[in-house]
């Protein structure tokens, strides 16, 4: 192995003396490097946006939810809450009900999700709903439930008028409009009685693990269902993961093209070094070591491109994020500039992919070279 490493190193250093091969090698190296830069920066951009979405999700969403296994009403919510308080004293527990209602302003009436929460004292409409209804803080809306009450005129939908105290940001993934009201108001509109549909739990210290922790505490209860942050936001998280995979594959194609260029480069070196290879074989270099020598050559070029590209890519992402060089319109996004976040594991995967493709690109010419009888190369000369 040491002899092959020695030769590969000398060949790579000596490339500069042969203009044509050196130029092609430089193009291969720059191609791979640019591919890695593109992949690292794109994935850092994606990770930046996805991180901000996940941060937002953690800030605003419920981290775990306890629901009845069947039906809509949760039995013994107070007993469950006290059990959880014992096991998780720092976790915030909120009783909640939810129902789809018609919400009407003086301008329009739209269906929306009405959420009643025990930690809420005033009514808040999210931006989506506020925009649809043309209302703002200090406005008032009518909430019309699908529940009916009997009147002398016959059954009519239950209706309540609430004053909007605040217009807040929409929860990630919620596009239909949400009206958050005090629990008692929601219970009156949706149920007509003090029912609780779910316990919403929040633990900012370990939001992603809260579901599993609650499952441990309430193990053996088959009358309830416990949903973690992942379960509650599965469609959104799946969409984010899918987006990441598709971008990785799409931008990764640049690396494939660069690797094909490397294949041509290694094949060109193999053709140019035909005589040298015959001489090396005549000196006793076995075919498997000839193949290894060419793999090392390709990997040497690939490693220089991959690591160089990774350094440039990480630096670019870091500078763009630190300086906020790409501003975003205020009010549209939750962040003021395009966020970049470099995940070391992601960089390692990109470098690994580049090295793998380099090895693959070198493997084919190396096989061809290793099969040649040494006399062929000497006769050719």
């Amino acid at each position, binding site marked *: 192995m040491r002899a092959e490493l*020695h030769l590969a190193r000398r060949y790579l250093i*000596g490339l500069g003396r042969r203009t044509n091969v050196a130029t092609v090698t430089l193009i291969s190296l720059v191609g791979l490097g640019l591919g890695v830069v593109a992949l690292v920066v794109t994935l850092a951009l994606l990770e930046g946006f996805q991180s901000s979405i996940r941060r937002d999700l953690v800030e605003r969403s419920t981290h775990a939810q306890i629901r009845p296994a069947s039906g809509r009403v949760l039995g013994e919510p107070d007993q469950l809450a006290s059990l959880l308080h014992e096991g998780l004293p720092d976790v915030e527990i909120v009783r909640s009900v939810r129902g789809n209602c018609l919400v009407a302003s003086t301008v329009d009436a739209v269906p929306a999700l009405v959420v009643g929460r025990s930690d809420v004292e005033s009514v808040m409409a999210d931006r989506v709903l506020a925009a649809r209804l043309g209302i703002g803080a200090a406005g008032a809306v009518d909430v019309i439930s699908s529940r009916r009450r009997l009147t002398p005129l016959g059954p009519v939908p239950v209706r309540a008028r609430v004053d909007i105290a605040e217009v807040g940001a929409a929860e990630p993934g919620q596009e239909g409009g949400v009206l958050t009201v005090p629990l008692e108001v929601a219970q009156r509109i949706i149920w007509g009685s003090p029912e609780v549909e779910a316990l919403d739990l929040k633990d900012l210290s370990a939001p992603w693990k809260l579901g599993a922790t609650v499952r441990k505490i309430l193990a053996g209860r088959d009358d309830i269902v416990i949903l973690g942050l992942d379960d509650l936001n599965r469609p959104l998280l799946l969409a984010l993961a899918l987006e990441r995979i598709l971008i990785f594959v799409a931008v990764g194609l640049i690396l494939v093209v660069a690797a094909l260029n490397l294949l041509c480069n290694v094949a060109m070196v193999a053709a140019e070094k035909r005589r040298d290879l015959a001489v090396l074989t005549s000196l*006793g270099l076995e075919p498997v070591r000839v193949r290894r020598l060419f793999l090392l050559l390709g990997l040497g070029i690939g490693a220089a491109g991959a690591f160089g590209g990774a350094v440039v890519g990480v630096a670019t992402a870091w500078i763009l994020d630190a300086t906020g060089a790409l501003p975003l319109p205020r009010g549209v996004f939750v962040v003021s500039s395009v966020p970049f976040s470099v995940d070391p594991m992601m960089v390692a995967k990109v470098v690994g992919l580049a090295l793998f493709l380099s090895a693959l690109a070198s493997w084919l010419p190396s096989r061809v070279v290793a099969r040649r*009888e040494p*006399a062929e190369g*000497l006769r050719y000369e």
Partner: protein
Amino acid sequence: MSDSGIMVRLHGISKTYGEGEAQVQVLKGLDLEVRRGEMLAIVGPSGVGKSTLLHLVGLLDRADEGIVEIDGQDTGNLSSSERARLRNSLLGFVFQHHHLLDELDARDNVALPMRIGGKSATLARRRAEGLLDTVGLSQRMTHYPDQLSGGEQQRTAVARALVMRPGLLLADEPTGNLDRTASETVFRLIRNLHAEENLTSVIVTHNEKMAGQCDRIFKLAPADQSSGYVDVS
């Protein structure tokens, strides 16, 4: 090494190049033995198969028919890797063109077979320096091939051929590209090292004077001529 007095034994060797109408038979039913310690010159007109013969002895090519025994070992069934290892440990080559690697200086070129053989870089360099000194190139160790004259390049190639202390030296027109003075220097060097290192040498040459200084001359004629192969002792 085998105790047998025969270092190289070829029996019934045939070799053909090309296919169909372009087929050319270069060697046909050739028999040859080279005794241990002998210096054999192979002569003959161009295209008669001298280099092919040397390549077959050097395990750089495979015969279509016949037996090639080196140091008592039948090489017919050896794998490519086994043949490569045998070349590294037992054979030394000097080609008509020096065939030094452009990327390595003279010392690293000479040390290369030892590095391929798995010896340490330090040991290989020390042996290479000793040999370069022997061939009169102690002042050229860090020179690259393109910084050496033709004679110096070929002397470096001779040093490289001997760095593994081979039993068999194979030289394919080693002075073919050199002027008269350089040719004489290189041949004298090969002859001296042949004696000093206890070598068996097979030298392909067009130079009759040089062939005449060898222990034995083996004359090759075209395969289709009835005269065949003549041992001129």
